[in-house]
């Protein structure tokens, strides 16, 4: 699982002085963070510490909730240019297309597998009909779902197993060709085997995307993370690099941090 650094790592997302308030109460404050391309950063922290809020601040999904106020800057490098997520996107849809997100529980659309991929591809990315089948197959192969579903693309997505649904959600995000992936506990609702499978996929994907993931499992964190950040009470409490994780003492400290 060792991995050679091919190129000097480049920053891809920069968060500065970020604070998010819900109805006047701060859920996040004073967050400064840089995410690098080709790296997986894992966020851990106790429940209610603001992990989900941090992820949603990056694709501005917090705005879907009433009484939410965000201050600070989130800058993202897209196609080599730095853009401010909160100023330069009008409408916000383009930002969300380039920053894919997978949720804790699979949330497929209650229609066919194919439609789950094609509706956003046609309506959001504006993909032409002729390029559609190729892109769908590519996305499903990317998450190793193609062989399992290629004969039943027209079946309802709800007939898939939980792990398959979650991989479909990942494929749906990947199909839109994002540069950043936000994963909110993607294996939380899955059993051991399905979890393993998703973890393997993520290891394969992490070189090509900037990934920010939440995890509740320390084992998983160790297996996947290039970097770990710890949130507590809406603050960034600590950061570790990969090397520290393998160190038993740090690991102990981490355990205490969370529980």
């Amino acid at each position, binding site marked *: 699982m060792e991995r050679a650094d091919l190129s000097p790592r480049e920053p891809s997302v920069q968060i500065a002085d970020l604070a998010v308030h819900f109805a006047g109460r701060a859920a996040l404050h004073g967050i400064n963070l840089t995410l690098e391309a080709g790296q997986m950063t894992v966020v851990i922290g106790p429940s209610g510490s603001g992990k989900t809020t941090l992820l949603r601040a990056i694709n501005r999904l917090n705005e879907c909730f009433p009484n939410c106020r965000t201050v600070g800057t989130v800058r993202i490098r897209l196609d080599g240019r730095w853009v401010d997520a909160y100023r330069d996107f009008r409408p916000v849809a383009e930002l969300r*297309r380039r920053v894919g997100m997978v949720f804790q529980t699979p949330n497929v*659309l209650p229609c066919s597998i194919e439609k789950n991929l094609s*509706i*956003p591809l046609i309506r959001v990315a504006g993909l032409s009909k002729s390029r559609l089948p190729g892109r769908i197959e590519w996305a499903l192969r990317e998450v190793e779902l193609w062989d399992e579903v290629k004969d039943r693309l027209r079946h309802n997505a709800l007939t898939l197993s939980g792990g398959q649904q979650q991989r479909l959600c990942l494929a749906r995000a990947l199909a839109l060709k994002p540069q950043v992936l936000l994963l909110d506990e993607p294996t939380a609702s899955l059993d051991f085997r399905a979890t393993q499978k998703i973890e393997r996929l993520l290891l394969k994907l992490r070189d090509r995307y900037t990934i920010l993931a939440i995890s509740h499992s320390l084992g998983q964190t160790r297996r996947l993370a290039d970097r770990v950040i710890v949130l507590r009470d809406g603050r960034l409490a600590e950061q570790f690099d990969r090397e520290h994780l393998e160190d038993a003492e740090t690991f102990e400290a981490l355990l205490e941090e969370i529980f």
Partner: protein
Amino acid sequence: MISTPRRSRSTLSGERWLRGLLLAATLVSTVAVFSILGFLVYFCLPLADPARLAAVASCTWQPFQGQFGILPMVVGSLSLAAGALVLAFPMGVGICCLAHGLAPRAVARALLVLIHFMASIPTVIYAFVSVFLLVPLMRQWFERGSGFSLLSAALTLAVLVLPTIVLLIHIRFEQIDPPLRLASAALGFSPAGELLWVILPLSGRGLAAAAVLGFGRAIGDTMISLMVAGNAPQFPTSMLDSIRTLTAQIALVVATDSQTPAYHSIFACGLILFLATGVVSLTIRRLRLPSRESLFHAKNA
């Protein structure tokens, strides 16, 4: 062994009584439906004679010449209900979309309150205002006829069935919207895009139910067609023609108290209406609506 307390016997029989009483109350609805059907059929029986049946199922209503055809009224009812539905359905969809993401929350909430309020406005008031506001306008604009026409009635009736349609679609949207809202937003859908490409295509059943129930309400309405449609027993050839519906026919014949043969024809009208709305109710059940609130808020005109 566990001994049961003394009182249990009397409470037990009390329980049984209560249950029986409640069941009896519940049976009232079913019994009422069957008696209504029974009465309608019974009074239609004289029409079992082929000659009389042919007279009723004909195209001319001239009771004093002995012609009791009700087909013009059937066509009148159908065209009025269809007209109202064509006007009200797209409006209902638009309003539902406003209430589910296109409009700011405060506006959305106010809009839904307004829709509920519309459902509580008496039918006779819609018709009354139409007679003194819409009909004169129609007379001026089209410079033809009296203004009492299929078009005037359809416009008014559209307002009447609008709340029914909105509330039904709203219920369906409420079911599918919340879990998908965040996921769609994360995929880059705008609120309009989400509604147009995700929510609406997925609410086929709700839309169908709304259309069917809206049609049922429209066809069962009496006051608007009676007061606004003009009541000429003829086949409409344009939207500006005056028409007479089945419901208005019943009201008019009973009011004028004409000779007996005409009576049988109104029971035929009643039976047709009963069967039509029965089919509507059965269809709605087949579409298995999520909540009964819909039927409760929707107007039974």
